[in-house]
């Protein structure tokens, strides 16, 4: 059976949920081979094996932390040349898509980005035009290079050998042209990553700058926090949390929009959420047309009371 390369990016040896989703999807196409570009393969190995990696290829070249994107694509192309995989799956992060694009050029392969589903026949599903259309497509030339959005599938435990193999590659000078001269880590929020979270609580103009109620509800639900463009532009929340056309696109199980009117820019970033709840003082807010449950009311009353009730029910 053919092998499928799955690019996993463990952080400090911990494998994120999107990588586990890729391993689960990869099993539909062949035998998953996890690829770790950077350090952490030994620490991540057991988890990768548990979720289906038949082997783990570990490549730890200094170029990966010294230069942007291109060295990873080069390393993957070298692995692909020796493995001849049935497909290459990469997570749809900004870096992942750039790696995928370069890889597709190197391999002369068709490229599909932001797949939300991969079927056994290799065809993919994408949600396009702000979620208004669904597209089924296939790569018809070369080794399919597919980037996959988080929350595509529930990861399934599927134990496999997953032995870690150290591989060295040679990275050309030409791939090192974008020099990473400084990296300033951002403080982790302690909450789930926005695009991966099962529940998102987002705040908009109606918060009037106070995200306290939004964060408290999010924490009660173990959810990620998001923000509308209006809230971000007003400086109330960092841009990394912006949901919408020029921010992140999320597709969680549950999206709670608090004080968000639901302009099309915002809807583009969340309208494929499985369930949507909206809380807004304005009964005419467009968001209510999307919501499974709409509450016309003040989020500063509704959210804290709901948070309290949730805590009460836990006891």
């Amino acid at each position, binding site marked *: 059976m053919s092998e499928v390369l799955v690019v996993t990016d463990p952080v400090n040896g911990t494998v994120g949920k999107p990588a586990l989703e890729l391993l689960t999807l990869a099993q539909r196409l062949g035998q998953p081979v996890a690829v770790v570009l950077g350090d952490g393969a030994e620490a991540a190995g057991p988890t990768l094996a548990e979720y289906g990696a038949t082997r783990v290829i570990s490549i730890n070249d200094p170029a990966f932390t010294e230069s942007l994107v291109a060295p990873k694509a080069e390393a993957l192309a070298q692995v692909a040349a020796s493995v001849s995989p049935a497909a290459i799956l990469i997570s749809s992060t900004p870096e992942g898509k750039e790696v995928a*694009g370069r890889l597709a050029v190197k391999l002369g392969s068709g490229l599909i980005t932001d797949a939300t589903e991969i079927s056994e026949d290799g065809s993919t599903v994408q949600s396009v035009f702000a979620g208004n259309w669904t597209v089924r497509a296939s790569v018809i030339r070369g080794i399919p290079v597919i980037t996959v959005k988080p929350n595509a599938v529930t990861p399934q435990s599927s134990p496999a050998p997953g032995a870690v193999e150290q591989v060295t590659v040679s990275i050309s000078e030409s791939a090192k042209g974008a020099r990473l*001269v400084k990296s300033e880590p951002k403080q982790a929020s302690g909450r789930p990553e926005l695009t991966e979270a099962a529940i998102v609580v987002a705040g908009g103009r109606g918060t009037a700058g106070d995200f306290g109620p939004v964060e408290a509800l999010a924490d009660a639900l173990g959810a990620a926090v998001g923000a509308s463009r209006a809230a971000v532009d007003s400086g109330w929340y960092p841009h990394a949390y912006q949901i919408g056309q020029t921010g992140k696109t999320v597709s969680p199980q549950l999206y709670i929009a608090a004080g968000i009117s639901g302009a099309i820019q915002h809807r583009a970033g969340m309208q494929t959420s499985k369930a949507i709840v909206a809380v807004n003082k304005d009964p005419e807010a467009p968001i209510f047309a999307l919501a499974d449950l709409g509450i016309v009311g003040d989020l500063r009353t509704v959210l804290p009371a709901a948070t309290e009730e949730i805590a009460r029910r836990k006891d």
Partner: protein
Amino acid sequence: MKILVLVKHVPDATGERRFAADGTLDRSSSDGLLSELDEYAIEQALQIADQRDDVEVVALTLGPHDAADAIKRALQMGASAGIHINDDAMHGSDALATSAVLAAAVTKAEPDLVICGMASTDGVMGVIPAMIAERLGWPAATLGATLSVTGSTVTIRRDADSASLTVEADLPAMVSVTDQSGEARYPSMKGILAAKKKPVETWRLADLGIDPATVGLEAAGTKVLQTTPRPPRESGKVITDEGGSGVAALTDFLATGKYI
């Protein structure tokens, strides 16, 4: 210094966007305009030009006839000249073909710096700048929230989720900028009038040495099998919060859905 800004003419996202029978985007279904994210690229190019005497900003687009409007807007904002690659053979091209043609165009135009937006607002792949750079063997400093050029070095700050990265590259280089890079200027009346006189060249594939058989729908590496409009979401229950009814509805919803 010559800066080439790659811009795209896209259907208005607030209008109705549809697929044509051949699985390609029906570009006639909605009025088109310059992709909003490309405005930021033009703005950054113009800011560099504002600071120096020796900068020429050229806007380039690849698209059918109406794509000229994207160039027009760039000229109105302040770009000095335009290039419109217009060739029917491009219909249905995938990212591989698009990047190949744009790479050939960059080679022909000989800029010192190419600036792109972070993604187009129709395809939203966000891969073209990296793919062009790959083809040219140029460094790509992409997704910059800030951009500056000093001597022959370009520097960006790329704000990833976990860290802010400072990335440097030597010219000639490919760069892309995000919507965080600085509000794009509106064309002034003077700029709108001046745009009418600015030169716009039209290039075809033959001018780029591209074989038409390598581009277009038939040459694509991917195939659209089916397109389905998503049924509009039905609005569910809407209740007005009175005497705690809103909170009760919310917590019941959460309990029923097993979110708590």
